[in-house]
């Protein structure tokens, strides 16, 4: 059993956990990241939703109650965190565009508009508002992407279909890695009739370097090329995760991808080590400080039992509606659903309330009162609180 001690151990490999780990690595701390499986951000659109509302994200955040995690992080940290995210993605070869000052509306695969803030460069042209002049290219047999949804909603749009030989988003994206396939696709595109300036494709332009593929198509056709989000498996979500993860590895962060934490060792208000369940012998990871970023119910950070909601790694006290009947509502997606507020309550340093631990910090959607669905703030909240918790942790470590 190793006696090696990390400065910080982050539990949870999603956007929030990786951003926290990156922030600490940049400050020179030795970081380990522990994850149980891949994060749900791989299933997301890859867009960074910061806060819903017409006046821009910051105005929306200012209107949140004072105990919302965003308000604890503060505007300055939110700006800093999103700025550092943009830099990381730029350096990682998957540039994002947008600013925290305003929200944008992008086209969804069903022809409606989605509010978001930062988008991958390949979705920069997906503005919903810039008229409806759009030609959609789909792929034969592709599941869950029906261009007629878009053309039936948008008057000035048309579509055509390419036979890629495969019909899954993963399969097509892998084909775009191949130069021969790309050339064939481009020469087919040049042959079709397309009256519009914008060329929209499902998000399958390669697994790793979509900007290169986008530029190639754009230059060859003289049209603006854009990707539209798809249902899972979602390639832009996968690219987001892989780019963040590679950035952490390049900074010397250690990853322990396995079956999660099986036990926690602590003494006198300090957590000392975690035991990881692995396929073989359990491994032990020791740290001076710990960050919890395991996400909410879907990611497994919270678990709803018969009478109470549990936090699954450290057993922290969880804030939730007291009566079990209040956990339910006829419509799960109703904004303001009471269970959405469930999570870990923290102090201004993102340390959990009501637990006797000094060296544990909490970030991401596991935070109480974050109401991610109502506020449409998933990745934005993850990034901002990840950085904020890491900064608090760094102050504690110094």
């Amino acid at each position: 059993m190793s006696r090696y001690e990390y400065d910080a151990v982050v539990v949870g490999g999603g956007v929030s956990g990786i951003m926290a780990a990156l922030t600490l690595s940049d400050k020179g701390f030795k970081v380990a990241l522990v994850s149980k499986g891949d994060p749900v951000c791989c299933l997301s659109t890859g867009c960074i939703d910061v806060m819903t509302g017409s006046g821009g994200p910051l105005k929306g955040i200012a209107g949140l109650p004072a105990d919302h995690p965003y308000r604890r992080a503060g505007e300055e940290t939110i700006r800093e965190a999103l700025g550092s995210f943009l830099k990381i993605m730029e350096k990682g070869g998957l540039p994002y565009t947008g600013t925290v000052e305003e929200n944008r509306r992008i086209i969804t695969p069903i022809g409606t508009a989605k509010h978001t803030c930062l988008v991958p460069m390949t979705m920069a042209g997906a503005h919903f508002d810039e008229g409806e002049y759009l030609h959609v290219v789909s792929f034969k047999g592709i599941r869950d992407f029906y261009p007629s949804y878009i053309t039936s909603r948008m008057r000035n749009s048309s579509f055509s279909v390419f036979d890629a030989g495969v019909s899954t988003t993963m399969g097509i994206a892998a084909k775009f890695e191949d130069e021969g396939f790309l050339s064939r696709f481009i020469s087919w595109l040049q042959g079709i009739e397309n009256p519009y300036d914008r060329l929209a494709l499902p998000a399958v332009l390669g697994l790793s370097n979509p900007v290169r593929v986008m530029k190639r198509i754009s230059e060859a056709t003289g049209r603006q090329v854009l990707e539209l989000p798809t249902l899972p498996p979602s390639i832009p979500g996968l690219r987001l995760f892989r780019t963040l993860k590679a950035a952490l590895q390049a900074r010397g962060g250690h990853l322990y991808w396995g079956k999660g934490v099986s036990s926690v060792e602590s003494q006198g208000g300090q957590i000392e080590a975690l035991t990881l369940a692995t396929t073989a012998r359990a491994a032990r990871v020791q740290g001076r400080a710990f960050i919890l970023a395991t996400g909410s119910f879907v990611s497994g950070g919270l678990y709803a039992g018969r009478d109470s909601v549990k936090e699954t790694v450290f057993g922290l006290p969880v804030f939730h509606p007291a009566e079990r009947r209040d956990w339910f509502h006829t419509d799960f997606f109703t904004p303001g659903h009471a269970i959405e507020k469930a999570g870990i309550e923290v102090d201004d340093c993102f340390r959990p309330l009501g637990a006797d631990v000094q060296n544990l910090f909490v970030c991401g959607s596991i935070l109480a009162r974050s109401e991610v669905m109502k506020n449409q703030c998933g990745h934005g909240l993850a990034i901002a609180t990840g950085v904020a918790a890491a900064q608090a942790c760094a102050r504690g470590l110094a």
Partner: protein
Amino acid sequence: MKFEHCVRCTLCVENCPVFKVNPEFPGPKQAGPDAQRFRLDGERSVDAWVKLCSQCKRCEIACPYGVNVSEIILKAQLKYSSEHMSPFTAHLFANTHYLGKLGSSAAYLTNALSSTSLMRGTLGLMGLSSYLPLPEYRFLTLNRGRRRKGRFRSPRKVVFFHGCYLNYNRPDVGRKIRDLLTYLGCRVVMPRQTCCGLPALGNGDVDIARKFAQVNARELVSWINKGYKILYACTSCGLTLTHDYPETLRIPEGRKIAENTYNVHEFIASGVEDGTLTVEFGPVDRHVAYHIPCHLRALGIGYPAARLFEKIPDLKFHILDEDCCGLSGSYGFKKKNEGTAAALGEIAANAIRAVEPDALVSDCGACKMQLGHFTGLPALDPSEIIIESLRPRAPKKAFMKRRPT
């Protein structure tokens, strides 16, 4: 039943290399948890595509809900094989151990023959793929050489489970790893051992796998009882010893073996980090791409060789862990998988080329064969990099220069 915990999120699908390039394979979600409910009634298996899974185990590591996706598929593969006639190649590769024995005892003849076009043609007719040269065999295998090395009284007693590839095909690398361990003060023993059993499992022959496992288990446990730790360098052997022995094959001593078995670099890195091994790393002026084998990921122990690389001055290394090399042991040597293996090899090779390294490093023999072929770069074991770092300060005898035998 664990397959019922699947919420159909498709994270496993996003991580499946075969699904990415072969439309015939419906992906781990369908091949595993989705199809499992139809297998429960014990009817004869009909889905031949289940055999297209290469058992890289990426799906299982990706699953946040703890579903044992690849194990479900493995069991379905074994069920399918037990109910259908296996092709010739499956019998051949299930017994790679005997193949190695035979091949190495007449190494010159084997190597000369296997490169001739007549032989390749014959093998092609028998169902072998042709894009990759067959691995060469060596006469002076590890188990023909010295079986014990290092001070007898050393407190660090280890058994080196070298597996088939290091034994029959790359004994030169095997000896380097042995020498590295003795240089670090270990007593190294290489007892009688047979194939770990993974090729047999992968080729649908659970009986042979169990037979091999029982032979190894008896031997290994006798050394564990004497205070030895078991070390492996081949990550697939390691995964079989620590995961399949206790779980899939239910070997009674399996749990004990899993508790006492370590990756060789995990063993060294832990020793260096907690100060029980004092090593002074010298500079290595190299820029390498470290391709992480799928089965190292699956072990869940992190990337221990990278922990050592960090300590080597001047060494620049890139960790590449998102692409499967596609060969997956004997999988890519079969004609029906040739397209899949070659497409994946090309994707992984592109990722390596993108970082412009002067060599590639990997723990796995199959990854090295495949990616060395596709990139044309020298393919090294992590231990060879560590030896390069230690050699200048070590006594001359510690790491003898060896030509590949």
